[in-house]
């Protein structure tokens, strides 16, 4: 293998970025801690395009569905990737930790089973991990990798309440009246700074040249005014409809805190209700819902 993609520790307690290790001797730098959240899967695109050798990659449950996503979109050659599956009990949310502990005092944070262990200043604090986990981990239904060559340790049990809380937020927004809903989304999208982080991190957005980066025709203006921002989010949500596997990264890394999961999960809920339950990223060979049809599909409009 030419390289292994994993995570390493960086300066601050909450920083565990992705790392590309080419020299086996540096394997010690690899780390598994409550902050190794960022999904390394999309880097495989660049890697496979630039070098022919095999590459290893560590994947959590959510990341592994990203592998299937790229395989299904024919952007990845399975045999050139060695997948190390890492069952994951959930990752910590630095914001939640900062809200309860003096950030400057924290030295390091580790997860032991259901316990979060922090060294703050010189004393050690143990708290229940549940309250400090990322939202996306609380609704995670596939903590164990769905595709791997080798599994690092045995599988973990998914959270019980993961299922009902999956569409809870979507339900809450949907129950608002039309005008209230518009005002809610207007407030959210007003903060969007159009940095495209959500698109660039999303394994479902794996096009060679994204439609928003094309000048001729110009589908989306570069100006950050409300109509264009809404246009961007509607079209992106539509493009990943039936392909998004709810890894929640877009919402997590959005600097402006736009609740993108509520939008993507709304489409997943609609597709499940209308065209039958479909979970993206589990089987790399099936056909996404919008790429197929059945004669007796129901319609969301008056078919008389």
């Amino acid at each position, binding site marked *: 293998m030419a390289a292994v993609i994993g995570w390493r520790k960086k300066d601050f307690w909450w920083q565990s970025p992705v790392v590309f290790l080419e020299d086996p001797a540096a394997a010690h730098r690899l780390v598994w801690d409550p902050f190794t959240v960022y999904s390394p899967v999309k880097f495989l695109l660049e890697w496979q395009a630039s070098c022919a050798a095999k590459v290893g990659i560590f994947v959590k449950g959510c990341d592994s569905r990203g592998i299937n996503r790229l395989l299904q979109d024919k952007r990845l050659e399975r045999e050139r990737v060695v997948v190390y599956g890492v069952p994951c009990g959930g990752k910590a949310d630095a914001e939640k930790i900062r809200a309860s502990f003096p950030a400057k005092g924290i030295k390091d944070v580790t997860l032991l089973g259901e316990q979060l262990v922090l060294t703050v200043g010189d004393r050690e604090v143990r708290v229940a991990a549940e309250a400090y986990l990322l939202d996306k981990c609380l609704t995670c239904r596939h903590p164990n990798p769905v595709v791997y060559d080798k599994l690092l340790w045995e599988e973990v049990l998914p959270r019980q309440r993961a299922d009902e809380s999956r569409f809870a937020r979507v339900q809450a*927004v*949907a129950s608002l009246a*039309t*005008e*209230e*809903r*518009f*005002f*809610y*989304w*207007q407030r959210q999208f007003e903060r969007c700074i159009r940095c495209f982080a959500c698109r660039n991190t999303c394994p479902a957005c794996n096009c060679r040249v994204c*439609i928003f980066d094309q000048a001729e025709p110009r*589908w989306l203006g570069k*100006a950050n*005014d*409300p*109509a*264009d921002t*809404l*246009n961007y989010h*509607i*079209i992106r*949500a*539509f493009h990943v*409809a*039936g392909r998004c596997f709810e890894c929640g990264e877009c919402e997590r890394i959005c600097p402006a805190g736009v609740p993108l999961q509520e*939008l993507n999960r*709304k*489409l997943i809920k*609609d*597709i499940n209700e*209308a*065209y039958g339950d479909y979970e993206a990223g589990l089987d790399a060979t099936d056909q996404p*819902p*919008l790429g197929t*049809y*059945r*004669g007796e*599909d*129901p*319609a*969301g*409009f*008056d*078919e008389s």
Partner: protein
Amino acid sequence: MPVVNERFEPLIVAFCCNWCSYAGADLAGISRMSYASNVRIIRVPCSSRVNPGFIIRAFQRGADGVLVAGCHPGDCHYHSGNFFTRRRLTVLKQMIEYLGIEPQRFQVRWISGSEGAKFAMVMNSVAEEIRLLGPNRKLRDVR
């Protein structure tokens, strides 16, 4: 926002599939039916040619209503075109309603080549519904 003799006149963009609804529109003409003049028809080969990008672009550029008209399921000249349209535009319509856009703003109707009367009726009902809703302020470009 065009106001003709003190009444709000909405602008409606209609994507009509060449084989059925566009033919239905022609039949409405041949039979000299009359319907609201607010609608502007864009001819597309099949309703499955209509990209959500066109629909959002129309709203962004100031259309007050958008209609996509295609063949009845099973009648599509290209066999399966409108089956894909049905799934795509159902997902899109429910999404923009979820984002707070009034449901009547964006409509999809199946109109066959022999349903001239239905075409005129749909045009009138869509124009009326949008007239009641008032101008499109939510999706419109501020420029």
